[in-house]
């Protein structure tokens, strides 16, 4: 029963990870930018939602505000940070340091604005009930899973069926070709940042009501997204989503056999093993050394 309980906990955590990681993978796939400030989008979205609910606004308004903030931040990072650096042909690590700097900036701004404590949006949805002897589930579980499924279906359709979506997928494969067809890679990369950042919103809102927010949350989210993206196969949306789910489940299940300390490291053990033995990830193309 403990196993089943941990599995369900893992799926809930994993659904949130999957959405966030998919956003990261989308951005990386389309722009080849390792967007480590992705966690900052998440944190900003969460705190925007928190601010709205503290102001007594209904939750849909809060979600919209979170969406606006996350998308604006993602677009801003693209336009004002990544693009100028790429113009100078900055190396991969230049981008990394710049984005990490912004993560620190966002974290300290949140600290100054909201204090450094832990903040949670109270919700009746998080209270677990015993659905089977020894198995407790809260309504938020169904919300998390439902939202993840619906959003993945929408994003999938968008990428498969629309011109912009197909462009996005093509961008990672051959930017030159795209230009020849008259699609602006600049607009598409903005689209990737907007869409990718928007995918942090459900995770941020769910975290705000379940385990709560704190200014340092961005670093944690960044690590999980990064790990999922790699385990899934860099650039593969489907892979990142599955890997996010996998990491969430592993993180929880490992507790049934190992010391509780290992929970947060477990995901990274999986990551390390994947890189050593299956570096292309779940769905990636073969990696050239």
């Amino acid at each position, binding site marked *: 029963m403990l196993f089943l309980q941990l599995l369900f906990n893992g799926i809930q955590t994993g659904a949130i990870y999957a959405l966030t990681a998919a956003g990261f993978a989308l951005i990386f796939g389309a722009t080849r930018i390792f967007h480590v400030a992705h966690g900052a989008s998440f944190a900003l979205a969460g705190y925007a939602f928190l601010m709205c609910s503290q102001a007594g606004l209904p939750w849909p308004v809060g979600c919209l505000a979170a969406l606006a903030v996350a998308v604006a931040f993602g677009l801003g990072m693209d336009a004002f940070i990544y693009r100028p650096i790429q113009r100078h042909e900055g190396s991969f690590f230049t981008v990394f340091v710049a984005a990490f700097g*912004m993560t620190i*900036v966002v974290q300290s701004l949140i600290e100054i604005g909201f204090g450094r404590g832990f903040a949670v949006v109270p919700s009746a949805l998080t209270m677990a009930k015993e659905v089977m002897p020894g198995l407790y589930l809260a309504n938020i579980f169904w919300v998390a899973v439902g939202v993840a499924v619906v959003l993945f279906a929408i994003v999938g359709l968008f990428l498969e069926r629309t011109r912009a979506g197909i462009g996005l997928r093509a961008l990672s494969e051959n930017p030159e070709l795209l230009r020849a067809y008259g699609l602006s890679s600049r607009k598409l990369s903005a689209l990737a940042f907007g869409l990718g950042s928007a995918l942090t919103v459900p995770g941020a809102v769910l975290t705000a009501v379940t385990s709560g927010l704190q200014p340092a949350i961005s670093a944690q989210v960044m690590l999980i997204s990064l790990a999922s993206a790699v385990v899934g196969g860099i650039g593969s949306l489907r892979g990142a989503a599955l890997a996010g789910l996998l990491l969430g489940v592993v993180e929880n299940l490992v507790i049934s056999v190992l010391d509780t300390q290992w929970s947060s490291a477990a995901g990274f053990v999986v990551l390390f093993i994947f890189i050593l033995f299956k570096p292309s990830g779940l769905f990636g193309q073969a990696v050239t050394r």
Partner: protein
Amino acid sequence: MIAYLLNLATLATVFGILAASLNLLIGYAGIFSIAHAVFFGIGAYTGAQLAILFIPDVLLACLAGGVLAGALSLCLALPALRVRGEYFVAASLGLQMMAVTLFSEAHSLTGGHGGLVGIPMPTLFGIDISEPATFLVFCLLVLGGVLLAIRMLMRGSFGRALMAIRDSESAAEAFGKDVPRLKTLAVGLGCTLAGVAGALFAFYMAFVNVESFTLEQSILVMAMVIIGGTATLAGPLVGVLLLLLLPAALSFLPFIPPTQIGAVQQLIYGGAMTLLMIFRPAGLAGQSTGRR
């Protein structure tokens, strides 16, 4: 005030060694590791244990720390041989996160979060060198030695071969370079030097615990190298001075309310990192055209 400056200078020297050793990986070999704090930590724990259990001789501690860190660098060399670029970054990240858990779990070796306390004053061949100025001189000597060694190595055939791999691995292979061996050597050397820095750090702090060897520390060192300028001798040192002295200097600013010092320091520190990367992407000491 002098004592404080000496202290800061010693810390900067230790980080100088650490950053220079990471530069060997990032700058010359093109191995983007964000697990450098792991090897810094291995050196520090080894040096500290040696000093506590046997003899607080700095040279011995540096040797032991360096050797162990170098030996364990295989954990990093393994993924470095298999993958590159973002994949390797992720691998080193995984290593870093696992190591932090190990450091905090292995109570008998590392003291867990409580750390190792009561590291004795450093001696050298039985002579007490705990005086801050003396210890600083010793650290400076080590730094000088490290820089000299890196300079000589990088100008020699080893360095040229490494840089060839960095710029194009397949081309280097085609020219008959033994890529795996060279990479393993570079990783081993870089991590050994990180271990040496770690041993010095243990004596400097007289206390070590896992918090000094986390991902944040790895990223700080990486930022030092990148901001200073990769593949230059002076770059890492410039980066160290900037990133260590900046927070120290900020804490002297008069207009920040004491309860917000921390947040404002972090804000300026993060902002400076970003701005520097936008306007000097090759680093402060690097060529302005940006490499690679």
